[in-house]
């Protein structure tokens, strides 16, 4: 077990290094002179020279790579558009994205778990059919369609919720619902399957034979065991929510890191693009690592399988 945990943590660093390496080379993929692309044709030679120097593009490639990592680790990477360190620009946006992703996850769990569990209990009934349709719709409906549909219904027709921006709870509901719907579809499918598997397990039959109450069998024995795969999917999906929030953030003008990335692309602020991509990827990797470690800690079967 310990060996697995150590291996899993150690593997995180080369992956993060590999991701950083990919991000480093982005700027070299820009067709033509990246500095001219960022500043435009009307830039003065002094400006061009200054930016080339600050991005270390006047150095040999190996030195550029070392300086990139040095700037990254010392927090010296600066945004061209905001004229300040990328960490200062990204920190508040990252908090906003976490807030949105957490709320989206909460909504997804609140919708999907009861639907999935109820569907397993009422297998082959109309409830089960409706739950499966919900699951299919949830995973297939694109965010960039669901978001505007929710705006039309709840903001324009009913006038209940604000269209965009970040403020109180009312501002969070529509973007979180948009972002969480895909996860809700997937979760309801997983919870149904997991609950069905547990319900046919022999230990439930023996529980009944020992005279345990139905409520105790379901709540204590069935639900607890069914929750293990569900929790894993929740954890892994949280990483996906963090890295996939840019469409929702764009639709609802949510000031998160995804929207910052898209704006940085259009202002040709490539150091900020690199930093955002790296930050989102690093958050995704960290969340996945934590989930994997927790999962290995919780489920003895995974522990044994990994150790083999």
């Amino acid at each position, binding site marked *: 077990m310990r060996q697995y945990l150590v291996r899993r943590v150690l*593997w995180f660093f*080369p*992956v993060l290094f*590999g*991701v950083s390496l*990919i*991000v480093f080379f*982005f*700027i070299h*993929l*820009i*067709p033509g002179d990246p500095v001219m692309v960022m500043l435009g044709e009307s830039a003065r030679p002094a400006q061009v020279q200054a930016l080339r120097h600050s991005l270390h593009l006047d150095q040999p490639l190996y030195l550029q790579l070392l300086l990139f990592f040095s700037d990254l680790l010392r927090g010296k990477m600066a945004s061209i558009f905001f004229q300040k360190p990328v960490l200062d620009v990204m920190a508040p946006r990252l908090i906003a994205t976490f807030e949105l992703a957490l709320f989206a996850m909460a909504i997804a769990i609140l919708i999907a778990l009861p639907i999935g569990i109820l569907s397993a209990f009422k297998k082959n009934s109309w409830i089960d*059919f409706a739950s499966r349709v919900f699951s*299919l*719709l949830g*995973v*297939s*409906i*694109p*965010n*960039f*369609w669901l978001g*505007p*549909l929710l*705006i*039309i219904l709840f903001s*324009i027709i009913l006038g209940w919720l604000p269209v965009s921006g970040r403020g109180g709870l009312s501002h969070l509901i529509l973007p979180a619902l948009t972002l969480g719907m895909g996860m809700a579809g997937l979760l309801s499918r997983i919870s149904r399957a997991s609950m069905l598997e547990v319900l046919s397990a022999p230990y439930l039959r023996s529980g009944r034979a020992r005279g345990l109450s139905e409520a105790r069998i379901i709540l204590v024995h069935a639900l607890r065991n069914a929750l293990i795969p569900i929790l894993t999917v929740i954890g892994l999906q949280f*990483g*996906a929510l963090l*890295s*996939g929030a*840019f*469409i929702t953030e*764009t*639709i609802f003008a949510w000031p998160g890191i995804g929207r910052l*990335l*898209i704006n940085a*692309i*259009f202002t040709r602020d*490539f150091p900020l*693009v690199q930093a955002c*991509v790296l930050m*989102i*990827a690093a958050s*995704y*990797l960290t969340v*996945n690592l934590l989930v994997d470690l927790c999962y290995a800690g919780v489920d003895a079967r995974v522990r044994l399988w990994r150790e083999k």
Partner: protein
Amino acid sequence: MSRKLISIFIVVVIAVFAVSGIFAAKLAPFPVNEQNLCLGLAGPSASHPFGQDKLGRDLLSRMIFAARISLIVGVTVVLISATLGFLIGAAAGAAGGAADQAIMRLIDLLMAFPGILLAIALVAVLGPGLWNVIFALSVLGWVGYARLVRAQVLVEREKAYFESARALGAGWARLIFKHLAPNVAGPLLVQASFGIAGAILAEASLSFLGLGTQKIPSFGSLLSHGINFLRTAPHLTIFPGLAVFLLVISFNLLGDFLGDYLQVEEKGKV
């Protein structure tokens, strides 16, 4: 709902989009960029069943051309990714040892990177455009196929027919293309179906963000235009979104169907 009804739905939706995409120039009732400023944002009518955009362009005609972009991207990305994935996965499984381990670590690294994020970053540096989008989506697209094929090679290489073919002196190329390919075709087809849905969705996402095709309309760019007129012209959002949704759900259902069918076949064989 019976499986027959669902399969009819899948066939009809995919056929309608495929025919629209292939014969877009003939089927579109109006030229794709023909403007009629007097009728800007007009709702659905007899001559323009899906309404008109801000410049008075016919939305149905633009959606017919958008179907072409979606299908080109979906099919091309999957063809490139599946071919690359097959070759790399088969090579890794066949070679074994250090080469296999190196390829698997590269695959692990790429799988750790959120796919759409890398595609956005690549299109950001390469610039928008159809081929850049296809390239950006294919860069990570092959990874899942390679993993699938490698796993299949590891299973197949232990089987008696594979051993006998090797004993008879068949080279790796013959073993892979003649013996392995037919056995991997089924799972690859299932993954390809989900892959087309994923690529269509990813292309529409990129276009929605302004990073997709520029000259020819795509469902994402149509939606991105429509979102500015949710109050006055909701049809500009509802119809293109519905089209992407139908396409994606059809390919997802097709993948489910193929998966179930292959499982039944496999059980039948056993």
